[in-house]
């Protein structure tokens, strides 16, 4: 496979995850769909099942969303609910919802309740993965139990018994994917980039959409045979905040005259920078990773999250940061003032786009805000 072939494939599955799911299902796979970055795909692979991360689609609407969901839900969650109502997830043998964000927890309960109201709704079987991220021993013990419960559920839907050897293999495979993403990141973070921020999102996502049997060779091909580099002197932006599971905001920033070199959110560059430990007990290693090693809305202490953010700023040599928060954000806004101070202290300019709607966003306004901000940068003498 050439790098160009790999990139084409990555772009295609990024643009049509559900099509990819349909294809694998038709080929005989037992699919386990999941949301967010907090479901241990290692377990799904160790059970011999086929994991695929599902995200919202701002263009996918269902009249049932407005009927049942309060407008205060994250836009992406509204979109996921609508997709579930329209049968988009019918290919999934199981849908795993992690408890790492309140609105996703609510989504779980709404999807459980909805068959009472919509008799024809074909919601797949659901599993709540009650992962907690408080940094305590007691919580680690709880999470271990939740891992075992998820494993039992996977076995129940037809997965193989998860033994230690299979788990070790799966951990190594997923670490391989994380490392490959780390290597690939020079393609969008480097001085002479060969990939845009939009492509970066696609590459990162591909590791959780394609089966590893396909994702590993695709990423290897991309790293070994990258697209040609081009000189790019536009300001280097780090985009931070609510998940950008689709490329709209990144594209908008790049159209406005900047380069998005890094993403700090649960679909971005902080999702692959920590590996699962391969020594010791694999269950404990997985718990440690998902409890403490991944970014998440509920994760704390804040200092640890901020250090990770600053490390990414440094690694990507971002010159500016754009904070982008969802319309009904009730959490990230608490962190913003401190993070702004951290950036100010380092002389890094930032723009705060708060309360941004996911559905029907004010594109012209957003564009103007970003362009206006970028214009102020150029006025500063070098």
């Amino acid at each position, binding site marked *: 496979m050439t790098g160009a072939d790999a990139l084409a494939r990555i772009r295609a599955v990024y643009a049509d995850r559900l099509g990819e799911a349909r294809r694998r299902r038709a080929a005989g796979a037992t699919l386990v769909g999941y949301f967010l970055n907090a479901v241990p795909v290692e377990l799904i692979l160790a059970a011999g099942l086929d994991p695929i991360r599902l995200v919202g689609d701002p263009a996918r609407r269902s009249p049932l969303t407005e*009927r*049942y*969901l*309060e407008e*205060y*839900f994250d836009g992406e969650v509204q979109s996921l609910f609508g997709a579930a109502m329209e049968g988009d997830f019918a290919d999934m043998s199981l849908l795993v919802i992690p*408890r790492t*964000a*309140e*609105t996703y*927890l*609510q989504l779980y*309960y*709404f999807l*459980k*309740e909805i068959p*009472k*109201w919509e008799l024809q709704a074909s919601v797949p079987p659901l599993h*709540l993965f*009650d992962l*907690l991220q*408080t940094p*305590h021993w*007691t*919580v680690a*013990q*709880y999470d271990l*139990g939740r891992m075992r*419960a998820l494993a039992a559920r996977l076995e129940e839907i037809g997965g193989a018994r998860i033994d230690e050897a299979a788990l070790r293999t799966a951990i190594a495979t997923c670490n391989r994917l994380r490392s490959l993403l780390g290597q690939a990141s020079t393609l969008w973070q480097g001085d002479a980039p060969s990939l845009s921020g939009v492509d970066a999102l696609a590459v990162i996502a591909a590791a959780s959409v394609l089966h590893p049997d396909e994702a590993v060779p695709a990423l290897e091909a991309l790293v070994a045979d990258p697209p040609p580099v081009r000189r790019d002197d536009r300001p280097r932006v780090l985009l931070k905040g609510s998940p950008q599971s689709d490329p709209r905001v990144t594209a908008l920033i790049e159209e406005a005259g900047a380069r998005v070199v890094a993403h700090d959110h649960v679909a971005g560059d902080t999702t692959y920078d920590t590996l699962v430990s391969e020594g010791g007990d694999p269950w404990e290693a997985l718990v440690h990773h998902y409890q403490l090693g991944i970014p998440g*809305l*509920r994760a*704390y*202490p*804040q200092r640890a999250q901020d250090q990770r953010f600053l490390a990414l700023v440094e690694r990507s040599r971002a010159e500016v940061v754009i904070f982008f*928060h969802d*319309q*009904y*954000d*009730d*959490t990230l*806004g*608490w*962190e*913003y*003032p*401190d993070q*702004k101070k951290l950036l100010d202290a380092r002389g890094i300019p930032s723009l705060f786009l*708060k*309360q941004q709607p996911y559905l029907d966003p004010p594109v012209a306004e957003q564009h103007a805000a970003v362009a206006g901000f970028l214009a102020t940068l150029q006025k500063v003498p070098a």
Partner: protein
Amino acid sequence: MTDTATRPPRAPEGERMAATLAAQAYQKATQARFRAEVIEGGGDYVIADAVAPHEIFHTMDVPVISLPWYSAVISAKQLSPYYFGLMDELGYHDGLPRYTSLPFMTTLANEPERAPYGGLPKPTMILERLRGDYGQKIGEQWARAFGGVPLVTIDNSSVTELTPGWFRHAQSDWEALYEPHRLDFQVKQIENVIAVAETLTHRSLDPGAFRQVMHRVNEAGELVDRAKRIIAAARPAPVSLPEQLTNVMAATWNRGSQWAVDHLRTYCEELEARVASGVAACPDERVRLLWVNNGLWFNTGFYRAFEEKYGATFVWSMYSNFLSDGYRKYFTDDPLRALAARHISMNEQLHLPGWMAEWIIEQARDYGCTGAVMLVPIGDRMSAFGTKLCAMALEQGGIPTLTLTASMVDARLWDNAAMIRKVEEFLEQRVLK
């Protein structure tokens, strides 16, 4: 209007139940004690979430300041606009759930002359239960703003199956309802809280005293259930909703104390005496209503605004008998597991689609209510989730339901005339047909 001669006496406006006055006096005395022992005396105290195991601290005789209570005091003193202004200045955007963060702002402002009671002194610890996503964020910053106090957290496990009829299982049959793996975890977390509390206060939790506290909460719950049966059966109702709430909330905040038990007993006796002598909140009562979701704490008069014209009276809110249905946890030998069961799904019982509606429908039947008004707060989405499905379920259960969307943050944004008109139209068009 009914014939004045045969109509039972209306409890005159301003003439409260003796129990109501006693509850208010007790709250005052508690505050005086807090001022003397903590603010002036520098004693230990804990800032805690509303839904947290206060029982531990009650047993250890450590005062607890509940977050929403202090927020309410700030709002009642009309200070919220000032602190919201400060939040703007500090960069906290106005879509954040601001109401419960008011107490945190008084600490950041550090202006003792402005804050109620001179501001909260440095607590022994802050106890946050991590429902939602942001409690830990505020807690961390607040603990830092106090100059570094321990933030102790209870993380919030989630129930995987919503067993129908939670209120039939919640008192005695709770082990399966709340799921054993969650209870195991909650017990461990509470044990951690106890260890930290003992370490910081140099006191110890006496197992015998704790057991008594846990029995007394159940006893208080039984009395609230008795009050419920009195109010539910009497036509007209012998007590207004604001007075119900004063009495029940005082007992809830002081749950586990002998005072709460004694108080509720006298409250019940007074209710019975009122029924016997025909004293009523609204003697011309023709329609009984439910008040669903958050209370209108800044305007309890609203609950009574429809009596004069329509004989329509609110007889129930979510706090009327939650102390009986939600708090009571009977146990044979393990009071700590019962305490774990008490808070583990409390918000879920009040707010999750399915669980919320089925309880409220049952309450409507018990109290003979034929309509419901549901408040959906703006700027606190945690309390708004599930309200659509709840309203639909109530309608399906034959209970016409009016939804009022309003800001709970700023009382000045409450358009009283418009809200009254909405309820009046609802009564005329849907309830009194």
